[in-house]
């Protein structure tokens, strides 16, 4: 495998055409207008963040770059030898065969990128969560005590209200009601809300998750603009 000093350093960027091919390949025949790409991107960023990688977005870019490059190489190989009996989606480089499953290929690549990042982080001592537990507690509590947090906190609340105001009243009411209750009352509250909206609890959870996934970046952008 390629070993680089910094796995997230972009040495190769796909062309517009190569990027389109990636989108088509992820869509698997049905044009999703980039939605499948966006969804996969969210999954990958979440995956890297869950693994406590501080450069989740960069590692996601790296994953997509590698998959795009692999697609180009496969296409070039097929063009050279159209009679090649091997499945063009055969990921034998990674030791597994995935029959036309873009999601699994993306995952395998992401896992490889993560392992490389982890090995690099071990060398440079970047892995914060390898520090002893007590130090991590001290870090977390220190982060909460930072003196400028109060100002940021107030700004964040203001930005949250601002972002919510851009939504229709029913949507805002949905968010308020969904997150109103805590602990045990929360489950009953959400069940009633789903009943009232005549959708399943799962559908309600997904609807709110999508709203929250739009709300968080809106608030983050607003906060950074106001605290410049």
């Amino acid at each position: 495998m390629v070993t680089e000093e910094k796995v997230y350093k972009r040495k190769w960027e796909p062309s517009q055409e190569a990027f389109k091919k990636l989108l088509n390949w992820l869509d698997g025949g049905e044009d999703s207008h980039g939605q499948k790409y966006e969804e996969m991107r969210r999954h990958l960023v979440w995956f890297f963040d869950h693994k406590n990688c501080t450069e989740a977005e960069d590692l996601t870019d790296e994953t997509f770059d590698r998959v795009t490059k692999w697609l180009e190489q496969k296409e070039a190989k097929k063009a050279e030898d159209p009679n090649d009996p091997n499945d063009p989606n055969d990921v034998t480089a990674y030791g597994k065969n995935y029959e036309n499953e873009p999601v699994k290929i993306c995952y395998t690549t992401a896992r490889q990128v993560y392992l490389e990042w982890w090995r690099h982080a071990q060398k440079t001592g970047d892995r914060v969560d390898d520090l002893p537990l007590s130090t991590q507690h001290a870090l977390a509590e220190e982060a909460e005590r930072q003196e400028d947090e109060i100002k940021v906190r107030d700004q964040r609340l203001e930005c949250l209200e601002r972002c919510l105001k851009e939504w229709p009243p029913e949507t805002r009411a949905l968010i308020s009601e969904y997150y109103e209750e805590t602990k045990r009352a929360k489950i009953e509250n959400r069940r009633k809300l789903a009943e009232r909206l005549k959708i399943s609890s799962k559908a309600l959870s997904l609807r709110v998750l999508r709203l929250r996934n739009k709300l968080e970046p809106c608030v983050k952008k607003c906060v950074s603009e106001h605290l410049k």
Partner: protein
Amino acid sequence: MSDAAHNEELIIRYLLGELPEPEVERFDELSVTDDEFSHQVQAVENDLIDAYARGELAGPAREQFQRRLLVTPRQRERVDFARSLAQLTASEAAFGTAAGASAAAVSWWQSLLSAVRSRLSFQIAFAAVVLIGLLLSTLLLVERARLQKQMQEERAALVREKQILEERIAKQDGERTQPTPVEQAPPPKSKLAFLAFKPSLSGTGERKQLTLLPSTEAVQVRLEFESDDYPSYRVELRSLADGQQVWEKGKLKARAKGGSKIIDLLLPATRFKPQAYQLDLKGITAGGAPEDLSSYSFSVVKKSSINSQ
């Protein structure tokens, strides 16, 4: 336990790093390849973050959350967002929302219009609306009274606490013959050392001292500086004894604080020997070229205890 509850429990254990490795790998793969699973994990994670933000997690669960889900800047931002959301929904639940009220008003208007079409339906609908209105008003008044009472009680508690503190300070002022109590306090058993550089200290030749104890496990360094916006920054640590670079970190993002910028770094204490060091801060242009910004020198002293020389 129902299947849904069992799944949720497993997901929570996955998120908190409590599953065995083969299960972790399986869940990792599903989180990327299975949309439904991924959404479920994210929803459970949001609930966990919300619980932490509201102070509902305690003891080992809280510690485990801090260990696993409060590590990266992105994770901390999500907790900050959850705190704001909790604050907003709590205040809206107490006083009602403009949005909720306008949504209720819209549906009330619609129901009135359709009820007008039938006289009997109109009478029934009108009566129902009046009843609902009365009920809502009563609920709001009761809730308002409860909150006002709560506020008064909290205010009274704060006043009492202030009085107690003032008495204590007065007592200490009377008894004090030594330097400030802070100097007499037992040394903190902190595992974290801090080093902060303000703009005025860079490049002036003034050298700070970083004291490391045997208990020190990590060093948090804060660089505060004034510069133009760069897409990213790099920091290099070199030993002044032999000029060798001993550590570097790139792709750093600075955050704004008034007219200055701040970068926070975390280094293991084992990186440092008792000698002088220099931190070089570079801005990285959009083209990837490094530009020197500031240098900060400091010397490291290792002590066996806080009071030793």
